[in-house]
């Protein structure tokens, strides 16, 4: 009898429809590309250290200055929207201990940076924290100790850490830019090698301006620079040690050498060598000075640039009749043309991420800075102007720096050359502040690596 009841119940269980629901899934495939609202609270300066910093750095509030560096960096990236300090409800001295997240979410901040600056053992010590305002938890906490004069660099390093934590890719703020500083009228320009922080501060000149200098490029460790200058009235590739100031000519070639660049391991220099109207690509091993011819074609092959793994080289050549971009293996084999659009393509530069090649394009009298994939597909022109060229990648492969010239009037006035940066979206174009006119920029790798 019991068994029969059990069977009946089992039967009912099978027959009666269940009323439960499966888990509803919703696919979110879109989001907004608006800059992330972030609050950069001024770093709190320990009361004992205020006077020390005033005496040493002549800064009234070093905490505010460091946070300004961070704020400007984040803003220039185009990915963050630093909120106005006037809207902050919590003061720095309390915020760095335990932020009231309600106050920060009230002003629509999604992330918050707080911190404290101290003077300890004759050094500057900065502790900072990154907070997720909406989750109400700490995302990162780090401390840096350095000589007080290095306070700007601390700001850059903090920005790199925040940028990486919130975007997933490495930052590019603790970097330098080497460029050609230009002064004087267009017909008689004085050109000097100059180096500065990526935000335009701490400019230093490396040459006196007696010789014409062009196309400076960093080596991977940022200690050496290769560039073009004149030796015995011939353009030659030079090597300069930034720390010691020692410079030398690279190789004794019977013609002119130009467009130099380091290999990714820094052991070789790749450049063009021109003689009798023909120019080919060569490499020189910096240890044993052995020169190797990479291309062998009766056309103009120039502007070589290695892929980040060193296995490939992109360059431009007019072998098809027009200047176009080509890719080949690092031994010169397997040459393939990758640019097929109308116009002329030049100055190809391989992205540090390896996925894109940046270039300058000339078409119908206008210059464009663009990017394409390494197989030539997906060409995108990021910016257009009267005259602009020589893109150089930020170390994370997200931003390009290049120079742009303005037209001079009939009297030769009004000419200028300035550095500009643009990110891969093509929307975040910014003028990079330099003390003088500037051209041929080259971005270093991260200094803190």
């Amino acid at each position, binding site marked *: 009898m019991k068994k029969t009841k059990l069977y009946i119940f089992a039967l009912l269980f099978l027959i009666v429809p269940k009323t439960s629901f499966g888990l509803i899934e919703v*696919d979110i495939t879109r989001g907004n590309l608006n800059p992330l609202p972030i609050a950069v609270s001024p770093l709190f300066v320990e009361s004992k250290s205020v006077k020390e910093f005033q005496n040493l750095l002549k800064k009234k509030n070093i905490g505010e200055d460091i946070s300004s560096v961070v704020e400007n960096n984040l803003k220039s990236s185009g990915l963050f929207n630093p909120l106005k300090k006037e809207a902050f409800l919590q003061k720095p001295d309390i915020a760095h201990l335990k932020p009231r997240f309600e106050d920060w979410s009230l002003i629509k901040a999604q992330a918050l940076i707080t911190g404290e600056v101290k003077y300890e053992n004759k050094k500057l010590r900065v502790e900072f924290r990154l907070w997720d305002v909406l989750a109400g938890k700490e995302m990162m906490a780090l401390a840096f100790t350095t000589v007080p004069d290095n306070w700007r660099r601390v700001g850059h390093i903090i920005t790199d850490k925040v940028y990486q934590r919130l975007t997933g890719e490495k930052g590019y703020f603790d970097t330098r830019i080497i460029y050609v500083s230009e002064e004087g009228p267009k017909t008689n320009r004085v050109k000097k090698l100059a180096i500065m922080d990526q935000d335009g501060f701490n400019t230093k000149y490396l040459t006196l301006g007696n010789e014409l200098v062009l196309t400076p490029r960093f080596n991977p460790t940022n200690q050496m620079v290769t560039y073009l200058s004149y030796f015995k009235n011939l353009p030659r590739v030079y090597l300069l040690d930034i720390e010691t100031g020692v410079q030398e000519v690279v190789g004794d070639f019977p013609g002119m050498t130009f467009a130099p660049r380091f290999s990714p391991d820094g052991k070789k220099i790749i450049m063009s060598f021109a003689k009798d109207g023909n120019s080919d690509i060569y490499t020189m091993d910096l240890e044993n000075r052995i020169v190797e011819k990479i291309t062998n074609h009766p056309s103009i092959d120039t502007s070589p640039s290695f892929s980040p793994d060193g296995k490939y080289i992109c360059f431009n050549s007019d072998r098809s009749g027009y200047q176009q971009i080509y890719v080949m293996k690092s031994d010169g084999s397997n040459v393939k043309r990758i640019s097929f659009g109308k116009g002329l393509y030049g100055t190809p530069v391989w992205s540090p991420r390896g996925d894109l090649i940046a270039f300058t394009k000339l078409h119908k009298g206008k210059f464009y800075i663009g990017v394409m994939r390494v197989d030539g597909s997906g060409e995108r022109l990021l910016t257009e102007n009267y005259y602009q060229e020589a893109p150089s990648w930020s170390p994370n492969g997200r931003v390009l720096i290049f120079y742009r010239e303005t037209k001079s009037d009939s009297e030769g006035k009004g000419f200028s050359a300035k550095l500009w940066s643009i990110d891969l979206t093509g929307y975040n174009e910014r003028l990079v502040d330099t003390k003088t006119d500037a051209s041929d920029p080259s971005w270093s790798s991260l200094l803190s690596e």
Partner: protein
Amino acid sequence: MKLNNLLQKDDRLMIKNIAISSALHIFLVVITALTFPFIAKKPIDLPPLISIELIQITDKTNIPFAPKAKKIIEKVKEKEKLVSEQAPPKQVKKEKPDAIPLPDQNQEIVKKPEKDVQNPEKIDDEVKQVSEFEKDELFDPNNIAALIDKSKEELAETTNKNDKITQSNQKNITTSALTLSEEDALKAQIFGCWSIPLGLPYNENLLVRIKLSLKPDGTVINSEILDHARMNKPGQGFYKVLAESALRAVRLCQPLRVPTTGYERWKDLQLNFDAREMLKG
């Protein structure tokens, strides 16, 4: 003796039961025969069934992101339109690997005349590329052709895209109980709250699935990343960044725009955050 009596009694009972059963069976057979369709005087003219999906109208909807509706409309129209001739070339383009193609994989794009001669100037017209900018700017006959090509490509792309979306949503039609506008309202709200971290690579499998437990007013009681273990694994920095951004979006958006009725249906909800389409650009 007693046993014999009992058996006779049972036999009689059985005969009686068989008689009743037979009578009832005959009755059923007669009734069935009488109600057979061919016996009916007039055949009932049944109208064809019309399937109607009940859609709850909510305050807001997002027409561009209503692929289900688009699919339904297109289903009613001709199917041939979906399988347009322009589709295959675009698909070929899309089938390209997302990973960085190495130059030696470019055989299909650039036809080199000879292996060791550095003179690949003879390029097949078919594989020549025209930049997007030029297509917009120039108006000579060749470029008009290019414009037509582009429009074809765009049509194909739209078709492919719609196919893709509708396929994924087909699953929802059968398993989820949210109506079109309910789902659209929720999606549109989260789209606005989700700041996509632009530094993420587009060619990695980055899909964050978050399970939410909700209050009837849409407030989030609990949010759980379904693949939480991946967050703290080494080399999964991008996944962590994406997961955190998705959680921020949920927190920023709450209370979520949930339907006013049927709490039991959606009290547990799974959101699948996938930024690849956006990051590809």
